[in-house]
């Protein structure tokens, strides 16, 4: 019973409470840039989730064999190898997505969330729990990035780009928005603005919840 509770806890904490983008900001580094198209955000999320799960699995299996002195180096080597594998697979099987992600596909290797989970969770927990933790974090990361991408693409371009399936080119055009879109939201400035406003929304929600429970409100800031 208790083990089941901790497993679901491991999974759910990545979705909201420790969301890698909105709460801990760890997934932000080389990911926010690809949030200009929904398809790129979904692809980036999937790629990061795969590397994250494989890294957590390997690190938790190898935790007794890696000496403390070279731990960072060993983790970096594991993550770089796995992200190289994912890069080669993406290049071979999803070339369009790989071209869209460009430099950022290679930068998955330095995504802070992967290094953080390897260092703070997989290093101390069993392989099963580490994989579940990585799955939760991966889903939370993908959902948050897709939310940002959805706002940026709908308002900034009037479209929603998904993946082409059998004859359909994969692009939904929102009527009425395409004629006069807010172009700046599709640029890098838009990524900062949309993230800033969404983060403020999350903070407001958390503060309302905290005051409802009678807990003291901090200054609305974590991290």
């Amino acid at each position: 019973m208790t083990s089941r509770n901790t497993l679901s806890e491991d999974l759910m904490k990545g979705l909201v409470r420790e969301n890698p983008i909105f709460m801990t900001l760890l997934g932000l580094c080389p990911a926010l840039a690809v949030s200009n198209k929904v398809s790129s955000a979904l692809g980036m999320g999937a790629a990061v989730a795969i590397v994250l799960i494989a890294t957590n699995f390997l690190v938790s299996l190898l935790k007794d064999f890696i000496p403390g002195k070279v731990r960072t180096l060993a983790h970096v080597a594991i993550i770089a190898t796995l992200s190289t594998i994912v890069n080669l697979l993406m290049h071979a099987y999803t070339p369009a997505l790989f071209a869209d992600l460009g430099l950022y596909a290679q930068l998955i290797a330095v995504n802070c969330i992967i290094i953080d989970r390897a260092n703070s969770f997989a290093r101390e927990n069993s392989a099963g729990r580490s994989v579940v933790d990585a799955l939760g974090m991966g889903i939370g990361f993908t959902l948050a990035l897709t939310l940002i991408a959805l706002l940026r693409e709908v308002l900034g371009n009037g479209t929603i780009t998904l993946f082409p399936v059998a004859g359909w080119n994969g692009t939904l055009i929102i009527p009425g928005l395409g004629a006069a879109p807010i172009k700046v939201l599709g640029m890098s400035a838009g990524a900062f603005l949309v993230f800033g406003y969404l983060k403020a929304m999350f903070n407001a929600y958390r503060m309302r919840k905290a005051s409802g429970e009678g807990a003291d409100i901090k200054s609305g800031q974590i991290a």
Partner: protein
Amino acid sequence: MTYIGIIITYTLVQNLVLVDLLGLYSYVNVTRRLDSAAGLGLAMVIVMSLAALLTWVIYHLVLLPLGITFLQILTFLLIIVGLVQILEMITKWSSGALHSSLGSYLPMLTVNCAVLGIALIAVNANYSAFESLFAGFSAGIGFLLVTVVMASIRERLDLEWIPKPFRGIPIAFVSAGLMAMAFLGFDTAFLRNLLG
């Protein structure tokens, strides 16, 4: 590209933070105070210049001749980790002042997407060794510029009344967004007019 072109491109037109959105985590964490922003920015200038040069050497003298360029992420990351370790040792040996001003920011650069980013950008752009060094240096200067300006803005914002949910990270991001909009002025047309 000319050296002046490289400098203007990577400090202003293609600023790593504001245009490529790299190094955001260290960027939001050090810009609470001006001195830490300047410290990280200076460390970034040194590490980026050396990283761009070293990765050029390894890429063109080892990876390319052997035909193993698919290993570039792994080798580049290991080079950067080693480089940062060596720089940390040097600052520890040399003097207390250098260590206290730069030493505490070096560990943040071990696994930093901006450092790996400029190394990959320089390799992808097919620069010569000196052009890579210049690109790394100017990207570092661009990072220093943006962190110092941002830290000044945030120190000023501390004195203003800000709605509670916006305090801290959100207002920093909205300000960065406005700054990024201002940086849109430095585009290729600007570059072409300036250089004739």
